[in-house]
């Protein structure tokens, strides 16, 4: 038996996201959200481990009330329990204060052998929260897993680095992040989705439930500050269009490359 906590996040679905110039943070409230794609791989990895070894899986998220939807999606995939950290004091958190709140929640869940996280979120793209949870909880971390194997009370992963793979091992409890290639996340059938909304519960915890140092939550507890958010201006050059049939334009392109000394 092995108990797993999977940390997931609801991310904005749209391009058209606003930000609050006063706090320099994104306005997440009211923006359509989806479950972060990489987190589905972490959920799937947890489900496959449960199929092999048994145990209970808890999905944990922090976000506005609407993040409930992403937890319901996790439940519909077959996750056993769902907890949402939702409190206005959590808003505007950078990775440090996010990881602080999540690690307190994991402590409150108490029974776990592994914490699984996706590679990174599609909005912040930092990949920092998982290692930071590991540090707050004083646990070993194994990042970039493309395979996970369990033996007795230890976990062994195949770890992806830029130009190599490593096999690394740690004893429980440990934090693991998974690569996208590790599995193909299951798509829940319609009746599981209905059941997740109708019959399952998403527990909501606020700052009061976690205890902890309130000065460390949210924007106030975040050492990093966004001072300016802007759309990147793509350089607007003048494009020279080569025209003609495929053979003709191929010839023109090769000629151009030759003239520029690129061939």
């Amino acid at each position, binding site marked *: 038996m092995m108990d797993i906590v999977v940390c997931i996040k609801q*991310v904005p679905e749209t*391009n058209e*996201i606003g930000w609050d110039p006063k706090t320099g943070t*994104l306005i997440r409230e009211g923006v359509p959200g989806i479950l972060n794609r990489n987190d589905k791989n972490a959920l799937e990895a947890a489900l496959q481990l449960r199929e092999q070894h048994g145990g209970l899986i808890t999905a944990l998220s922090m976000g506005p009330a609407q993040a409930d939807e992403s937890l319901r999606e996790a439940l519909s995939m077959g996750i056993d329990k769902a907890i949402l950290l939702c409190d206005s004091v959590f808003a505007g958190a950078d*990775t*440090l204060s996010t*990881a602080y709140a999540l690690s307190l929640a994991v402590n409150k869940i108490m029974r776990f052998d592994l914490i699984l996280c996706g590679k*990174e979120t*599609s*909005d*912040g*793209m*930092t*990949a*920092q929260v998982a*290692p930071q949870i*590991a*540090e707050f909880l004083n646990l*070993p*971390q*194994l*990042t*970039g897993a493309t395979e996970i194997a369990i033996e007795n009370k230890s976990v*062994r992963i195949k770890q992806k*680095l*830029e*130009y*190599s*793979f*490593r*096999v690394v091992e*740690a*004893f429980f409890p440990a934090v693991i992040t998974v690569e*996208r*290639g590790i599995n193909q996340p299951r798509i829940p059938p319609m009746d599981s989705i209905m059941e997740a909304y109708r019959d399952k519960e998403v527990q909501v915890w606020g700052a009061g439930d976690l205890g902890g140092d309130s000065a460390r939550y949210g924007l106030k507890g975040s*050492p*990093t*500050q*966004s*001072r*300016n*958010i*802007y759309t*990147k201006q*793509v*350089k607007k*050059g003048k*494009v*020279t*269009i*080569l*025209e003609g049939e*495929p053979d003709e*334009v*191929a*010839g023109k*392109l090769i000629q151009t490359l030759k003239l*520029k000394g*690129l*061939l």
Partner: protein
Amino acid sequence: MSVVNQSEYKGLWVFIEQGDGNPARVSLELLGAGRSLADKLGVQVTALLIGEGVSEIAQELIYFGADTVIIADDSVAKDYRTEVYTDIIVEQALKDRPEILLIGATCIGRDLAPRIAVRLNTGCTADCTELDIDNETGLMVATKPYFGRNLMADITCPVHRPQMVTVRPGVMELKAQDRERKGELICVDVKVKEEDTRVKVIKTVSSVPDGVPLEEADKVVAGGMGVGDAQGFETLRELAGLLGAQLGATSLPVDEGWISEDYKIGQTGKTIKPILYIGCGVSGAIQHSAGMINSECIIAINTDPKADIFNFADYGIVGDVNKIVPALIDQLKALKG
């Protein structure tokens, strides 16, 4: 170290990632970038070199811009392990109090930096693409893609120290060595013992890709959704081979499984700045363009004349990649005889 007196923190540190007796290219890029920042602040650059038998690299780090190299050479640090390296760096940082710590946003850097940031109770801005010093406050300003699609953010860490960032490989310019530069090498004791470690490295299998890494390639042929399928990428690979170019891809074909993640260029992939970039069936959305916009000569082949990429390409061909690429291959082959 929660609320700190900032004036007690001086100097800029660069973590040197190394393997097989060589420093990672990104670490050398950061020595150059760090040198410019440190000169603006009027402070020293310290390179932090950790491993076993790594001392030989130290002198080279001076040539690339370091004033001092701190060397932690010990068998326990032979393979990178998160906690061992965190222990060594944090102990030294608590003693020497650097105001800035730069780390390459490699797999290892992204594993290590956030852990150090928690231990030092400071902020770490991930995957930055630009760094500067604010003249008024002396704070480091780190620019990064903020939201996965279209936003950039300037981020500072005003109160906590050190100000930490990870920087993507290939973003900062690799400065030339100055073999006249002099500096100081300092060896420090490593207190971590093997029996205290919690992670074991069972084995390492290197999977060196063919040719030069994408980030360092002079020429890149990249494919987008317009390539159509995995077979289309094999055709592109042939074109790349004939041009002496490396193959790359946007994120969607990677998601489709047409090509592996190692080839991904853009916000969630690699950053490139080749002399020649040829985008085949690439629309030019920010997810991809953020990683290739600094290419010198950009050539775009796309069926849609309204595709974004034509707004920043130097040469464009409005047409079907699956007809034009084979024509290019035929003619290049004929050229080579």
